[in-house]
C-alpha cells in the first residue's frame, strides 16, 4: 500500500521558500504555520490509514498540535497566518472528531477506499416504518412488533395512561437491541484487524463486510434511540 506521506506533493513555504511535503502544518525549515495540507485525516496526526488506533496517543497528539496551531496563538499575527491557523485548526478538529469515534473512523476510512455509504442514511431514518425495506432480514419480525408497541406507548402517553406491561416489554426490547449493537461492535473490531493487517484482497473483503455491519449498526442505534426517547418522554 502507498503511504500517504509518499503521495504528498512538494510545495514551497510561503515564508522561507524552502520546499516541503504538503502534509505538514508547520514548515520544517522555518517553523512558520502553513496553509491547510492536502492529506487525509490520518496524515494530520502523522498516521497511516488504520482502524485500530491508540486513542490515548491520539488525544495526546491532538492536544500537542492544538497548542501550536490554535487561533489563540495567532491572535496578533499577520492576517494570512491568522487565516491559516483558523483553517488548520478546523482541519485538526474535524480530523480528531472523526478519528476518535470508532464508527465515524470506520466510515471515513471506507469512504477513502471508495465504498458507497449512503449519506442519506445518516440521521434521517427516524421512523422505522418508512424504512422497512432496509430492515435486516433476521430482525424483520421483531422490528415490526417493536414499532407496534412504540406506537401504542405514544398513544398511551398522549392519553396520560401508564401501561407497566408495555413499559417493561419495551425496556426488554431495548436491552436486546443494545446487546445486538454490542455484537456488531465486536464484529467490527475483528474486521478492523483484518483490514489493518491484511493484504489487498483481505482488505477488499473486510471493507465489504464492514459496509454491511455499519448499515446494521446504524439501523440498530436508530431503533434504540426511538425506544429511549419514547420511554424517556414519560
Amino acid at each position, binding site marked *: 500500500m502507498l503511504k500517504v506521506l509518499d503521495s504528498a506533493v512538494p510545495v514551497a513555504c510561503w515564508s522561507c521558500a524552502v520546499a516541503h511535503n504538503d502534509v505538514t502544518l508547520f514548515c520544517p525549515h522555518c517553523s512558520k504555520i502553513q496553509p491547510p495540507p492536502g492529506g487525509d485525516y490520518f496524515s494530520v496526526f502523522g498516521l497511516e490509514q488504520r482502524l485500530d488506533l491508540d486513542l490515548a496517543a491520539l488525544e495526546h497528539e491532538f*492536544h500537542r498540535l*492544538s*497548542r501550536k496551531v*490554535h*487561533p*489563540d*496563538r495567532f*491572535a*496578533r*499575527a*499577520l*492576517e*494570512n497566518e491568522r487565516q491559516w491557523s*483558523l*483553517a488548520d*485548526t*478546523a*482541519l485538526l*478538529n*474535524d480530523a*480528531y*472528531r472523526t478519528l476518535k469515534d470508532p464508527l465515524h473512523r470506520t466510515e471515513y476510512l471506507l469512504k477513502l477506499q471508495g465504498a458507497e455509504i449512503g449519506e442519506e442514511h445518516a*440521521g*434521517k431514518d*427516524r421512523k422505522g416504518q418508512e424504512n422497512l425495506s432496509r430492515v435486516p432480514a433476521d430482525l424483520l419480525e421483531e422490528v415490526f412488533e417493536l414499532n407496534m408497541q412504540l406506537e401504542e406507548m405514544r398513544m398511551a402517553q398522549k392519553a396520560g395512561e401508564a401501561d407497566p406491561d408495555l413499559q417493561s416489554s419495551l425496556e426488554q426490547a431495548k436491552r436486546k437491541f443494545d446487546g445486538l449493537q454490542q455484537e456488531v461492535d465486536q464484529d467490527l473490531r475483528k474486521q478492523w484487524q483484518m483490514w489493518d493487517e491484511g493484504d489487498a484482497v483481505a482488505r477488499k473483503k473486510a471493507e465489504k463486510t464492514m459496509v454491511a455491519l455499519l448499515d446494521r449498526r446504524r439501523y440498530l442505534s436508530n431503533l434504540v434511540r426511538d425506544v429511549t426517547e419514547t420511554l424517556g418522554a414519560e
Partner: protein
Amino acid sequence: MAESNVSGRVVGIDLGTTNSLVAYMEGDAPVVIPGVDGSNLVPSVVALDPISAEGGRPTVTVGNSARKSLIQTPERVIYSVKRLMGRGLEEIQDELKMFPFRLADDVEAGEVPRIQLGELRFTPPEISAYVLRQLKRNAERFFGAPVTQAVITVPAYFNDAQRQATKDAGRMAGLEVLRLVNEPTAAALAYGLDRAKAGTIAVYDLGGGTFDISVLKLRDGIFEVQSTNGDTHLGGDDIDNLLLTIALDEIYAEHGVDLRGHPGAVQALRKAAIEAKIRLSTELSASFDIELPNGDRYQREIPRAVFELLIEPVLARTSGPCKQALADAGVTPEEIDEVVLVGGSTRIPAVRQLVDELFHLSARGKKPHIELNPDEVVALGAAVQADILAGASKSTEEMLLLDVTPLSLGIEALGGTVARIIQRNSTIPASATEHFTTGVDGQTNVAIHVVQGERELASDCRSLARFDLKGIPPMSAGMPRIEVRFLIDADGILQVSAREQRSGLAAEIEVKPTYGLTDEQVESMILDSFDHAEEDFAKRLLIESRLEAESILSKVAGAHKSPAWQQLTGEEQAAIRAAQDHLAQVNAGTDMTAIRNATLALDKATQRLAELMMDAAVSSALRGKTMNAAGEELEDAVTAPHPMAAAEFK
C-alpha cells in the same frame, strides 16, 4: 495587510444582562477594574439624559447613574437589552410582555428591532455598545492609556446571530473583539488558573437573563469543553417577574389600583421585588412595603418556603439542559469531579439545593465551588483569555481553551427537512464541505438555506442565513459541482465560501442574514464616528468647564469667611459678588465659552483677595498668583474625579 496593534492591553469584558464588568491580568492574577464610583459592577442600563443639549443629541448615561432615572423617566431608560440581541421581531414578543421595551413604531418584520428611547431609536447592539464604551472608558481611565482590544463573553448557548450582534456592539464601541468566549468556559478559566489539576468539571451558570451548563475536561492546562447546553432566556429576571406579577395582581385586587399603566411605579415595585429576592437568599422571610399612588400601602410578607415554591418551575427548567449536557459528554453525575457556580442567581439556596441533587454532590461529600464572586468570575476568566491571546505572559502560556459549538448546523434539504452538517458540541473551529448542483438546464443560481438547531424540520430550527450562489457557468442540469465550505470560527460564528469545481471558478456568494445588521449598518452606528466625535468632544469640554467653575465658586464662597474678605473695599466685594452670581448663572446653562469667560472674570475679580489671603497666610513667594492658584495651594487640591478618561484628550 492589517497587522494588529501589538502594543496595548487586551481587556476582558463580561457584557451581562444585569451588570457588566471589565477586568485585566495584573501579573498572574485577574483583577476587575472599578468605575468612577468605585463599583466593580456597571449596571447594564442605558439612559438618555432628560435635558436635550440645545437641539443636539441628548447625552447618554450608563450604569448606576442611568439606573437612577428608571423611576423618574422610565421611558428614557433601557435595561436587560441582552435579551433582544440578535433576535427578530417575531421572536421577542414574549420579552415585550414582561419588559418595558418600547419598539419604534416603524419596525417591520425582518428588520433588526429598534427601541424607542425618549425621542431616539436604537438597535440592541447600539445599546450594548454604550455599555461597552463605558467599560472601555473605565479601563482607559484606570490605565491612563487607550484600550482598543477586548475579549467579550457571551452565553455558551448563544446562536450565530446573537454572537454576531455582540461582536457588532464591540465594533460600534470602538473595540476590536479579539475573541468571544463562552461565559461558563471563562468561569472555568478563572478557577483553573491556580489549580493545575486534571478532572471533569461542570459549570452551572444562572445569570440575570441566561442559563448555561458546560462540561469540561481539564488536563495539563488544556480546557476541553465536552458539551454545553442551556437556555438563552432563563434567569434572575424571570424570578423578578414572578414576584412582580404577584405584587401587581394583589395591588389590583386589594387596593383597586392597576399599576401596569404606570411605568415608574412598576419600576419602583420591580426594585422592591429584586431587593426581596436578594434578602431571601440569607433570610427566611422578606417583606414588601410600598406606598401606592393613592396613598394606600401595599404590605406583603414572603416566607422563603413560599418563594421557593414560586420559583420551582423556573429552576426546574435548568434540569433538562444539565441532563442533556451530561449525556452529550458521555458522563454520569458521579463522574463530575467539581461543580462551579456562576451568576448572581446561584446565590439562591434553592438553586444550590437543585445543583446538589443534579450532580449528587453532598451524597459524595462534595460542595460546589463558590470561592470566586459569582458576579465577577466570568469577567476574571475573560481577562485570563485576554492574557492568553496577548501571548505575553508566563502565567497563561500553558493554557488553552478548546470550546464547542452549542447548536448543530444544518442545511434545508428537499421537503423542508434538515441535513445536519456540523453536529452540536463539535470542537470549534469546525468545518464541513458540501456539494451542490443545479436542477434545471442553464441554471446559474443556487440558493442554500442554513439553519441552527436540533429539530428535524428546517421550519422548527432557527434560520441563520440564506446564501445565494451566483454566477454558476450555464451547463446542463446536474453538471455543475459547487463545493461549499462551512466553517464555524473560534468565536462560534459561521463563515462560508464556495467554488464551482468543473470550471474552477470561485462562485459568488450573496449572504442574507436572517437576523442581524449589514456591515454598512454597523459602520454607520459606530458611536464615536466622525460626525459625533466633535459633538462628544464639545460635551467633554463643557463638563470640564463646569467642574472648573464649581471649583472656583466653592473656594470664593469659603473665602467670604476669611479675614482677608474684610480688608476689601465695598466696591471690590460687590464686584466679586456680581462675578460669582454671573458665573453661577451661566454654569447652569450649556454655553461652554460663557462658562469659561465667567470663570476667568471671577478669577480676575478675586485677584486682590487672593493676594491678601496669601499675605495673611504665608510668605511673599506666592505673591502675584490668582485666587484659583492660591486656593489650590492653600486648600486641598481639586480631587473631584475626572469624568472622562485622560487618554481621550489630545
